[in-house]
């Protein structure tokens, strides 16, 4: 073995030992069994199942919030808690009045119908098709909501699946609103100067797809069409 090669191997050994000693020191510093959060265990389960290959540091990406948060309390009142239709109508009217000034698109399933809709997300229905070059940046899921974000350079796509109890409000102050049909789905579209939002339902879940305006409607249609259909 030459001197240089021997030196190099010793350096390699030193680095390996340093890393192992760091690990050993950490074990000594934290001898107790760690208690992981449920969120972590859930995330690890997903990662190990191979579903989150392209997921990168979640904390890196912060998408601009463009929609008013889902009004859980309102949803509970409107969907779950009220059995007397007349009362619900009053509450509905109240909320419609409150948000009339800045909302236009308001979707909920027809509550007069006796339909059985899932109160939690029992099946993920998310687009299988993804435009070229987009990489998964963020995945969040809870019992009643899934949010996935992809990014390609400066372009972004955010997809959300919620239960029927979710109420989505779109900003009415800016942009142009249209209603389109994609694959027999009625899709509410709102476009602003640089962004577009698509809102629809399959009577089991609600879906919201928002993206930068560089994504063509053809691509959005393909995404919507690639989603598993409900009953």
């Amino acid at each position, binding site marked *: 073995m030459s001197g240089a090669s021997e030196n190099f191997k010793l350096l390699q050994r030193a680095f390996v030992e340093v890393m192992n000693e760091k690990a050993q020191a950490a074990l000594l510093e934290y001898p107790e069994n760690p208690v992981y959060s449920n969120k972590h265990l859930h995330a690890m389960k997903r*990662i190990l199942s191979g579903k989150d290959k392209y997921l990168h540091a979640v904390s890196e990406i912060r998408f601009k919030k463009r929609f008013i948060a889902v009004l859980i309390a309102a949803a509970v009142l409107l969907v779950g808690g009220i059995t007397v239709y007349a009362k619900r109508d009053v509450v509905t009217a109240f909320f419609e009045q409150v948000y009339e000034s800045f909302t236009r698109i308001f979707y909920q399933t027809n509550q007069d119908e006796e339909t059985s809709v899932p109160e939690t997300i029992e099946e993920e229905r998310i687009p299988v098709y993804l435009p070229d070059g987009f990489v998964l940046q963020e995945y969040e899921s809870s019992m009643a909501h899934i949010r996935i974000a992809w990014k390609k350079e400066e372009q972004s796509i955010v997809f959300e699946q919620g239960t029927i109890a979710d109420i989505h409000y779109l900003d009415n102050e800016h942009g142009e609103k249209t209603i389109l049909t994609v694959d027999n789905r009625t899709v509410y579209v709102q476009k602003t100067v640089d962004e577009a939002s698509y809102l629809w339902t399959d009577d089991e879940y609600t879906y919201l797809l928002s993206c930068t305006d560089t994504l063509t409607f053809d691509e959005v249609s393909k995404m919507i069409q690639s989603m598993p259909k409900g009953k």
Partner: protein
Amino acid sequence: MLEFLLTLVDENDRHKVEEIYRKYHEIMYKAALAELSSKPNASYKAEEAVQNAFIRIINYFEKIRFTEDERTLKAFFISIVIREANRLYRKKEHISLEELQEKLQEEIRSDEDFVEKLCIKEDYERVKKAIFQLNSQYQAVLFQYFVEEKDGPEIAALFDMKLSTVHTTIWRGKEKLLKILKEETCGEWGK
């Protein structure tokens, strides 16, 4: 569900990842926790670092050298997680193109000189102690560079770093290591 994300098609690979999880998850978490102990919400951040580390491991799975030497493999995973832990609080560094080219030249011609200058054969423990004193960012990148023998682009891909940052980190890491040793007034090296 999420078919387009499925990656580890090979069942053997999947089992291997699960085995890595079983064997190294806890130690990776604790190593990350030790790195982040002075930061707020250290335990949550450590979990995030571990998640990101596993994503990197899976993304880079095909290129991992599954050596028989368990200590080297463990060191590899530790280097990934400490890098991820530090990444959560990293600061951006800027470097000019001219400076980078200069450093690249320096790096290319000085790898052997660098190892020579360490005088590791003469005083192995002193060099090891100096490596310990490097910050984790340098340790992780230099580990990949010297132990895993990865080049700049490979390290950039593994750690999702800019190539220029990788080269700068290698160059600065080596400089710092020499500086630490020099400050310890070792004999004849560097003269």
